[in-house]
Each structure stands twice: as C-alpha cells, then as structure tokens.
C-alpha cells in the first residue's frame, strides 16, 4: 500500500501569452492559469496506483498564495489531500529553489514510498526539479517513464523509460522518485461529484516561515524577451483559385520547383 506524493505546478496557460513585437515584452495581463500539462499525468498515475493497490496520494505544490485555485483543481483529480507550500516570495522560482523547498517540506515531515513528478513544467520545462529533488532526498530515481508497475510484495516499482536510443526497463526498491512522460496515461476529466468532493478535502498550508530556511536561486535571470517571428499571415479559403494563389506564391518564393 504505497504512500505516494504527486508534485504539480500551477502555471500560466502559454496559449494566453501574447507578445509585443516592438518592445519584445510579453503581454501577460490576460493569461489564465492551469495545472502544468504533464503534472496531470503525474497526478493521474499516482491516483491509478492508489486505486489499484490502496495506499494514499498527496498532491504537493510550491507557489504564491494567489495559486489557491489550483488546490480544488488538483484535488478533483483524485488525491485525498493537498499540501500547499505558499509564500508571496515563491514567485518565478528557479528549479534549484523549487527542489530545495520541496525537499525541505518532504524531508522528515511527510511519509512516502514514491514521489511522482512530470517530465517537465509547461512554463520552464527545465526537467530538473524531479531528479534534483531525488538527489536532495538521497532517493534513487527513474526519469522519462512511460510505463509503471508496482510490485506490492517487494515494495518496488518496475519502470519503463523512453530514451533517445530506445527503451530501458529498470527496477527500483522504494522509496524512490520517478518522472513521467505524457503518454503514460490519459488524465481523467474531473466529474461534477469529484469537483464538489475536492472542496471538502483537507489542505496543509505550509508557509516559508515554518520551514525556517531561506532559499536562494542558483540562476539569476538577466532578461526575458518575447521570441518574435516575422510572418506574412496571408489567409486563404479552400476555394480552388485561392489555393492556386498559394501555389503561385510558393513558386515566386522559390521554395518549390
């Protein structure tokens, strides 16, 4: 009966991010937030294991207090409890900080057999926090896992890693940490009852102060500039003469011959 921790991040929906070509600034004032794409897979995998083998699932996130809405969202996906590590200072953290904070929260305070992270966060996509957290907690870890089985009697997992040069199946005795690829499962869409249920689930609020440590970034960001692209953005219909126009255009550009 594994005790599982699923790590998730509350991120800006990158589809809402607009850019100002001239100033190369990001226009963020109309962005919505969401649970980082692949962290839904992380939560889903944890919940599936729990549904199969019993045990428990806690969802944990490090964020600013403004991320509160993420709790209902995460809890409606199945975890029985959320751990909301929040402080106004937890704004745009560097992965090393995030890993350090998670380690400080989990170390000693939370019982666990397995920690599941996503492959990478939708905003930073550093693919660091998982393995870095494992290192800080002195855990064995397997990254880029797209198939996971738990062997109850031996309290170990068999994980299939999908790597550039092929598949690698590894066996790890728990406790351990794994990071999952999006193709490991298809996250459920929370139902009305699950959403209502989420509102009743317990949440541990953990403040920076209660950790009695300071967490300095290892990387300093010197600039963030919108990536701009000059495109003509001509629009055509599916009518034959319109399509002919496109073909003529491509011929003129000399990209087809």
């Amino acid at each position: 009966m594994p005790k599982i921790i699923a790590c998730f991040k509350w991120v800006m929906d990158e589809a809402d991010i607009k850019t100002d070509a001239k100033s190369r600034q990001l226009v963020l004032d109309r962005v919505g937030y969401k649970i980082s794409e692949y962290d839904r897979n992380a939560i889903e995998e944890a919940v599936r294991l729990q549904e199969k083998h019993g045990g428990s699932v806690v969802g944990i996130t490090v964020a600013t207090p403004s991320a509160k809405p993420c709790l209902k969202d995460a809890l409606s996906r199945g975890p029985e409890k959320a751990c909301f590590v929040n402080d106004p200072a937890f704004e745009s953290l560097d992965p090393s900080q995030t890993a350090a904070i998670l380690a400080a929260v989990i170390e000693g305070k939370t019982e666990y057999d397995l920690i599941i992270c996503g492959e990478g966060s939708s905003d930073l996509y550093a693919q660091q926090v998982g393995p870095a957290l494992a290192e800080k907690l002195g855990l064995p870890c397997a990254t880029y896992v797209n198939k996971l089985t738990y062997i109850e009697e031996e309290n170990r997992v068999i994980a299939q890693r999908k790597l550039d040069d092929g598949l690698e199946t590894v066996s790890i005795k728990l406790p351990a940490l794994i990071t999952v690829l999006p193709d490991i499962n298809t996250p459920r869409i929370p139902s009305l009852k699950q959403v209502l249920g989420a509102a009743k689930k317990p949440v541990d609020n953990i403040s920076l102060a209660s950790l009695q440590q300071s967490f300095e970034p290892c990387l300093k960001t010197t600039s963030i500039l919108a990536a701009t692209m000059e495109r003509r953005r001509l629009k055509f219909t599916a009518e034959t003469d319109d399509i002919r126009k496109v073909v003529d255009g491509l011929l003129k550009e000399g990209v087809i011959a």
Partner: protein
Amino acid sequence: MEEEKFGAIIVGAGPAGSTAAYLLAKEGLEVLLIEKGAAPGGKNMFGGRMYSHALNQIIPDFWDQAPVQRAVSKETVTFLAGDQAVSLNCQDLSWVSPPYHSFTLLRAEFDAWLAAKAEEAGAMLACGIRVDDLLIKGGKVAGIIAGEDEMLADVVIAADGVNSIIAQKAGLRKKAPEPHQVGTGAKQVIKLSAEAVSQRFGLSGNNGAAQLFVGDCTKGMQGGGFLYTNKDSISLGLIVGAGQLQKNKYRISDLLEEFKESPHIAPLIDGGEVVEYSAHLVPEAGLSMMPQLYSDGILVTGDAAGFVLNLGYVVRGMDFAIASGAAAAKAVIAARAFNDFSKQKLSIYQQFLKESFVLRDLEAYRGAPHFLEIQRMFKAYPQFAAGLVSKMFTVDGSPPEHLMGKALSHIKKSGIGWAQLAGDGWKGARNL
C-alpha cells in the same frame, strides 16, 4: 454526498447566474453554481460597457471593489458612409461620479469577481463542468445531469446564455433561437498604453468613451460597430444580424478586419496589439423570442430568457441579466417560504420582473427589433445624414443652397421615398 440535495442549482456563472447564486447563498440556501468554462468569464465576451444601476441595487458601490475599467463620460454615435462620417457626440460629467452611469469592463475579470462574491457568500462553485440535461421526476425539474453525475435541487435556475440548452430541455423553449432572432458579434481587444487611450479619445483621468457606429461597417446589414475604451486597451467589434450575415455570405471576422482598417477607426487603434479575439451571439428579438420563464422547479434568466435590448445606440444585456438573476433569486426565496417550488409558486418571478425594469423596458421597446430590421436604417439613412452634414460644412465655390434644399437633394440621392421617411420617422419616434 450521493444523497446531497441543493436548495438551488444555477447553471452558468455569467452575470445572471452569479447574481442569483450570490443572493440565494446570502439567504443561507445550499447553492451550487455550475460553469462549463475552466473559470467564470474565461470564454465570455460582450461589447464592453455595463450600465451600473442594476448591480448597484445588489452590491451598493460595487465600483469600489469590482474590477471595472473606466467610467464612461462620453457617448458617440457615428454614421459611416464612404469618406464621410458624421457623429453625434455627448459628454455628461455627472455620469462619472457616484452612482456612476456605466463602466467599461472585461468579462474574464468581472465575471470571475462576481462568481467569487457568490462563493464568499457560501455558494459552491464548480467550474469545468458542462450541464448536459435536467433531472425530471414526476414531471417536475428535480435537478441536473452532468456527464455521469446527477445532482438534486429544489429548484434549477437556467442562466446558461443565449443558446440555453437548459430552457430547451425544460421544454420552455422549442429550439435554439432562429438566425433572425440573434445578432452575431465579434470583438477584438487591442492593447495600447493608458496614456494613448486617454489622449486619443480626449479623456481625463480614468474616464471612458463609448462609441457606436452605423452604416458602412456592416455593409448596410442590420447591426453596427462598437468601440469601448478600457484602462489600457480598446474593445472594438461588430454586431450583425445573423440571418443577413448568412444570406450575404459574409464572415464576421473579415468585416471586423475591414472595420479596423477603415480610415475612421485605423488611427484610433494605430500601433495597438490584438490581445484577444472572440465571437458570440446576442439575442435581438426582445419579447418575441422570450421563452416561458418558469415551470415546476425551474426558472430562466438573462440571455437564456432573451433579456437583451439592442437599439443600435444602446446595447443592454448585463443589467438585464443581473436584474433578472436577482428577480429569480427573490422568486426562489418566496417559494421557499412555502417549501413549494411548483409552477404556481414560482410564477411570482414574472411579477418581480414586471416590477423591476426588465419587462417594463422590454415592453417599452417592443417594436424596436422590427423597426431596426428596416434596411434603410443601416444604409440609406447613414448616407443621407453623412452626406447632408458634410455638405453643410463644404465650401467649394458652388452656388449656396439652403439647408432644406440640401436635405431634399440628399434625400433624393439616398433614394429614400418621402412616405418611407415619414413612416420610419414616426416608427422611430414611437419605438426609440
């Protein structure tokens, strides 16, 4: 929680739904507010201006806490005809001190705020859930069905907007509205600096401007253009009769692009970045499209009930939505006193609506929709007005002509018959 039963389930967290949820929760009812979008207001759009009176009744001085953009001090109606544009411009500074006359706002933040008020008051908000059907027991509405889940309630309030499937499922409305009963709206939010907005529209402080356009922008089709100034952006869009749009095979997005490029608009948005595009329907047929408003265990509010008034120079829907949501809440509270949510007991909703401005105003403008269907309104008259007035100001050495003469020649040019003019004038006077 399988056995859980709510005092009221409200479908749709737009202004109508959130207002009803807020008032009912304040009364201590167990309220469930269900929104299909990931967040309230996320996908909602409107032109950009809400008249304050309705919400001020419910949340006095709401402007102190609500995310409003600018208080409107300037109204402009412009007739567009080719190179010519004639505007009727009105500034009233009493509009920009409490109780403010109207505010421009952005739905994503405003709807989220209003839904949050309902939550604070104790309502349960469930986002990302689409209600698929009604739960009917013994011929009465007994709750809702969303995916696998059924949820019971004493009463269901349909606040699910212009295409309300709930009203249809309840049999209160036969089918989705007909093309001739709705307008298709499209809008872009264009980002500028706050200074640029104030300066381009000659606005002091945080005052705002509201502009409506008639004529070329809809290619003479029924409807018009609108422009509202937000803090540091502009909401620009069009509403065109859906029927005529179909008939003439125009794409609303193309019309909007043309509108943006027209010499009367281009300079106002020059250098701005489009940060949002959206399209949505507007009920336009007024009372004639109004479904039955209530039945056993259910009430219909806001756009779902067709409570919108589009006169060309005013577009009102938010204030109707809020007031009708409030009336629905009052009706539920009244019925609750008898713990009887039957059609008879809920019929008081109709009465509350009559007492409020909602039905009164819709009654008053009953004829407007037909009046506005007159083609001349959107082609001939704008040409006439623009032509005449520009002539007034034109000095080019050609022999002088008295204003009346000018008018006559322009009436001829614009091909309007006398009878029509008189008739339309009379209808207009009666209807607007």
